[in-house]
């Protein structure tokens, strides 16, 4: 890595540190910096640290899943939920909520729902044992719409109480109470991120074209299948603890592609850092702008992300989709 990137990396790391510290001191409850470290306030401190870790894990996972899918689908507008993970997980969770199953099983239900819907989308898009990009996007959309309809149906026929917890879930939350689950998902996410980084050069070649990548000695179909599985696990893991957080997997890779270029060896680390910063920042907003109420994180990422994205679209240097 040359000096140009080193400086940017150090800058981003510093920014992440600053915003993480800010995240510890700001929150729904107004406590002075000193009091936060008192023994009686420890639970609040721990909850905030958990949130920051969750924000970083979610940001990293979603941006890398986005990057990988964008390369595989050769479409810079792809996002982690394009394979139907969000609606699959949503349906899995909603079914359990409606059935009145204890909330500790809900992440499991969501994970299962996400994995099943990705398998469904993947198989719908498979032709002659090859993945057709257009078919993958299309079947993702169809499955998402169909499952969302079932979600809305279930919500309509169920009681109002369920409705609230579902809304909260469908727009994401970074409050994870079960730290064991958080550790498990973090391991899944960071293993996935690491694997994706190991395939950085393959992703470069595949983003140029499948046949081009094959000419460079890459077993394209195998690599694509494997990496789709990796992004599916990342997305399903995250969706099971944080619900659906939109826009991160789309705008962070996009912005970083404008800043550092499309080379995945640089793009992946740059996106990891900036998505972590973005998520921790959005989380601070979600906890503080309507204190003591908390705004779902997905609402904040969409409100912050959409204008940024529109600005990018209007810019001349937009990479062709």
């Amino acid at each position, binding site marked *: 890595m040359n000096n140009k990137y080193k400086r940017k990396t150090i800058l981003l790391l510093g920014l992440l540190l600053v915003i993480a510290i800010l995240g510890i001191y700001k929150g729904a409850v107004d406590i002075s910096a000193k009091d936060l470290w008192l023994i009686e306030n420890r639970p609040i401190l721990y909850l905030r640290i958990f949130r920051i870790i969750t924000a970083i894990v979610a940001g990293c996972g979603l941006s890398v899943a986005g990057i990988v899918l964008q390369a595989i689908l050769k479409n810079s507008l792809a996002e982690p939920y394009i394979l139907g993970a969000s609606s699959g997980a949503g349906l899995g969770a909603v079914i359990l909520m409606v059935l009145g199953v204890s909330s500790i099983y809900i992440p499991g239900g969501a994970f299962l729902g996400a994995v099943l819907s990705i398998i469904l989308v993947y198989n719908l898009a498979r032709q*002659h044992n090859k993945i057709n990009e257009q078919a993958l996007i299309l079947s993702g959309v169809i499955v998402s719409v169909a499952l969302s309809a079932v979600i809305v149906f279930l919500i309509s026929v169920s009681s109002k109480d369920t409705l609230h917890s579902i809304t909260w879930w469908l727009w994401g939350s970074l409050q994870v109470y079960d730290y064991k689950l958080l550790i498990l998902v973090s391991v899944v996410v960071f293993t996935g991120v690491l694997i994706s980084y190991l395939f950085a050069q393959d992703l470069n070649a595949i983003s*140029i*074209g499948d046949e081009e990548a094959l000419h460079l*000695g890459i077993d394209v179909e195998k690599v694509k299948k494997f990496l789709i599985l990796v992004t599916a696990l990342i997305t399903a893991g995250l969706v099971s603890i944080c619900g659906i957080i939109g826009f991160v997997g789309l705008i962070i890779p996009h912005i970083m592609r404008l800043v550092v270029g499309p080379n995945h060896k640089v793009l992946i680390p740059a996106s990891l850092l900036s998505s972590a910063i973005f998520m921790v920042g959005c989380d601070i907003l979600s906890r503080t702008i309507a204190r003591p109420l908390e705004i779902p994180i997905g609402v904040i990422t969409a409100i912050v992300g959409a204008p940024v994205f529109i600005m990018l679209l209007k810019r001349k240097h937009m*990479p062709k989709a």
Partner: protein
Amino acid sequence: MEKILSIHNLSGGYQNELIVRNISLDVSKGDLLSIIGPNGSGKTTLFRLISRIIKPVQGNIALSGKDILRLPLKDFSCQVAFVSQDSIINFSFTVWEIVLMGRIPHLKRLQAEGAKDFSIAEKSLSLTDTLHLRNKMINELSSGERQRVLIARALAQEPELLFLDEPTSHLDIGHQIQILDLLRKLNLQDKLTIVMVLHDLNLASEYSNRIVLFNQGKIFKQGSPKEVLTYQNIEAVYKTVVVVEDNPINKKPYVVLVSGR
């Protein structure tokens, strides 16, 4: 002459349709061979069969005596490089990044490019006269420049055999000559064996030592330009009236089209 590629009884195509049927063809070391033929005659399908994008239905392709399907993909792409037709690149990679990708087959996973790779990439750029473009975005280049950069990437693979699918389509005559002069130079000076699909019969005649004429998925005729480019062969395959003269400069056949009345 030592055979570098030998295709034996090859058939292949898509789904249920065989496009290439029972082709046998040898490429010798040092050849600059052109494949010509009407649209849909199987030239690009042959290209895709050799580049392992599609699998043969029957027959085999051997590289220096070894069946290519038995060779690991990486080893194969260290020996054979391909330049496809109209590569559209969606992401704004720089020319330098694109050319360095030619080193992928030679690198292990996680292995970063070293000084040797950089110097090979640089040499490939200067051979194709694109060194001044190294920091430009690939999608900002003209078609002629892009084609040269893609040839540079193929050269960075350090192949023994280079395949090009219509390297001069969409180029003006100046750029066509520039690309083909470059290929001839690589063939003569660097002893690179080259096989290219060409549409322009006169360019094929000018530059290749051997020509293979395709018709309906089969080889209609192969040999020197003089043997293949006769008005009888061309009229039979292309169903068009032509006059074949001798090029006054190099005495190679020169094809003149005659318009229908």
